[in-house]
């Protein structure tokens, strides 16, 4: 059992939890993820590691309620437990293996969409702790949905905010902002790291391709085991089939077949939807009635 040591509402329908999992915390690196399971009957839910404290033995997750499992999870309180919490899974971000001096020469831009700000944070923080100030763009619906702004400010070189409705920062999409930075402000980047909904990552890679900027994306296909056993998370990357859970989750964005990935991520949608409706009919006022499908921004 894995205890929830702290829980915070970061934005409407977006929650942060610190979970006690000393073995995971000890081995965690930026770019990796965990799989959590609430109880005996729960699904295995992959979530990116958003922070970790090796001395306290805790791992931070941030999730958005999109469907049944994430909604049920949002009802857990401080002091409650996850029955299962396994990780760290996947490969760490490439840069942690790179030569620090070489890395210092590079201009790195992170682009986060929606809840993607959470997984971007540990990467930017890691770089900052190694003496590298990366820039970041964080995009969201409106000011209310902005995550971890204070924390991000402390560790980024330049932090740019974009909101769809212009309620805060730049009005428009992260792609437009990146374009403006490069074309109007003459910014130069050697690497872009984009994390967020697949559709956002797809458009970012299309843009960066024009400028010839290497772009890393973090893929989030439907997963079961997270250890290479089921093949459900397979993607096409540069003509090859790769398993996101063991080969990724980060890949060269210019090689990823996003259309296939987006199509594959809908495979279980109708099943879950149908099961959900049946459940709601049976138990009125059931926990999963909090806007099913509305916040499906992450995918």
């Amino acid at each position, binding site marked *: 059992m894995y205890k929830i040591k702290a829980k915070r509402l970061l934005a409407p329908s977006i929650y942060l939890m610190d979970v006690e999992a000393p073995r995971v915390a000890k081995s965690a690196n930026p770019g990796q993820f965990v799989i959590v399971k609430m109880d005996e009957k729960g699904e295995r839910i992959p979530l990116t590691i958003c922070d970790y404290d090796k001395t306290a033995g805790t791992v931070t997750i941030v999730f958005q309620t999109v469907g049944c499992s994430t909604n049920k999870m949002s009802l857990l309180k401080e002091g409650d437990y996850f029955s299962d919490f396994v990780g760290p899974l996947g490969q760490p971000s490439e840069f942690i293996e790179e030569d620090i001096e070489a890395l210092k020469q590079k201009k790195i831009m992170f682009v986060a969409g929606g809840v993607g700000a959470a997984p971007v944070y540990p990467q930017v923080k890691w770089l900052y702790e190694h003496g590298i100030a990366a820039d970041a763009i964080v995009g969201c619906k409106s000011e209310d949905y902005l995550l971890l702004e204070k924390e991000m400010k402390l560790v980024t070189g330049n932090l740019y905010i974009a909101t769809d409705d212009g309620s805060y920062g730049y009005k428009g999409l992260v792609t437009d902002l990146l374009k403006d930075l490069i074309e109007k402000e003459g910014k130069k980047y050697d690497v872009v790291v984009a994390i967020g909904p697949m559709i956002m990552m797809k458009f970012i890679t299309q843009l960066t391709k024009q400028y010839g900027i290497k772009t890393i994306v973090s893929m989030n296909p439907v997963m079961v085991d997270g*250890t290479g056993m089921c093949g459900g998370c397979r*993607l096409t990357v540069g003509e090859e089939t790769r398993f996101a859970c063991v080969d990724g989750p980060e890949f060269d964005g210019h090689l990823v077949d996003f259309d296939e990935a987006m199509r594959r991520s809908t495979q279980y949608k109708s*099943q879950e939807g149908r099961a959900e409706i049946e459940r709601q009919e049976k138990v009125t006022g059931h926990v999963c009635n909090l806007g099913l499908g509305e916040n499906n921004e992450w995918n």
Partner: protein
Amino acid sequence: METKKRVPVKEQAPEIRRSNFDEVCLGYSESEAVAEAERCLHCKKPLCVTQCPVSINIPEFIEHVKNREFEEAARVIAKSSSLPAVCGRVCPQESQCEELCVLGKKGDAVAIGKLERFVADWSRENNIDLSQTLPKNGRKVAVIGAGPSGLSCAGDLAKLGYDVTIFEALHKAGGVLVYGIPEFRLPKDKVVQHEVDNVKALGVKIETNVIIGRTVTLEELMHQEGFEAVFIGSGAGLPMFMNIPGENSNGVFSANEFLTRNNLMKAFKEGYDTPIRAGKKVAVVGGGNVAMDAARTALRLGAEVHIVYRRSQAELPARAEEVHHAIEEGIIFDLLCNPVEILADEKGWVKGIKCIRMELGEPDASGRRRPVEIPGSEFVIDVDTVIMSLGTSPNPLISSTTPGLESNKKGCLIAAEETGRTSLDGVFAGGDAVTGAATVILAMGAGKKAARAIDEYLKK
């Protein structure tokens, strides 16, 4: 002639069982078991025992059954096997212990597996405590993977007094027994969990949710956590695909994914959150046990199921009993067909599988006649789901994170057959991780041999 025929075992009728997940085979009653036991000749040189990878003293336990001494029978089996209720159900007995039974020459071999199952079930129902261990010696051994090989290695070491911890990647212990083999062949709560609990009763600790190579490395176990020896029983869980066009369409799953959703995550049961998609018409590609299990699971979820296999029925690698059950239940066998492409509709969902007809040519290295394509014979089977069941290989996670641990081209760990010794001092391995996908009983046999070798290694 009475002695030539074995006592038949009761089964759920095919037309009923095809729509439920309850066990197909109902097992012997006491009197049936005794009657079957009476057929055994109690051979002086029992050939049956030579074919059992864990060397159960078969004539002795059967003799006890004959005398209605079921507890004694259970004790005889417990000396050699820690998972008898499992093996009695899923061992390919016809090619193991029963293959050389003398009665098999002129009639039916003794139903050794069914008798073993009877004894194990009886001992569970009567709460017989079979845990006998030597005093604890305080020395720590780690076992990676809670499948049959890991469980039997851990059980044997615990009996010898070792302080054993099993590290399991999934949230439940059992390996293929919990995620692969379906409920209707091997009940999970009743049988598998009980046998896992028996191993725990010997003092074995099981830490789930620990992936060796990710959560902690093998080196850390040995150098930081004080384990003096390690047994790797991590199985062969990596699914293979055909690499044909359309294989990433929506509705194409590996048998591993399909079975894991159904068995481990219990998607077939009310109240469990994990979804599964069986579709209306399913093609299962492959002819092994895994293919039969996937096919019969899809059938029970309401689909019309086709097995697509490139050789003929005689070459099906699945156990005869499973093929027979599958046919009885109404699985359609499209034999001598090989898929060449998966066809998808405009939204990317499977709408058919294009196959080419095959004929059998000359025997290949394995002695089986090699299937060759008949040019121009392509045709399409309309299906909305395809389940790929083409075999599995060992997961490279441990070998790639453990310097000095050698594996072969196929990704199998290299280990000595009699001891399980690997290229690293103090590290042993066995089961599917070494042999590639094989059987429960071979994995258990490897676990036992390694336990003995680890004991010798640590005593030195």
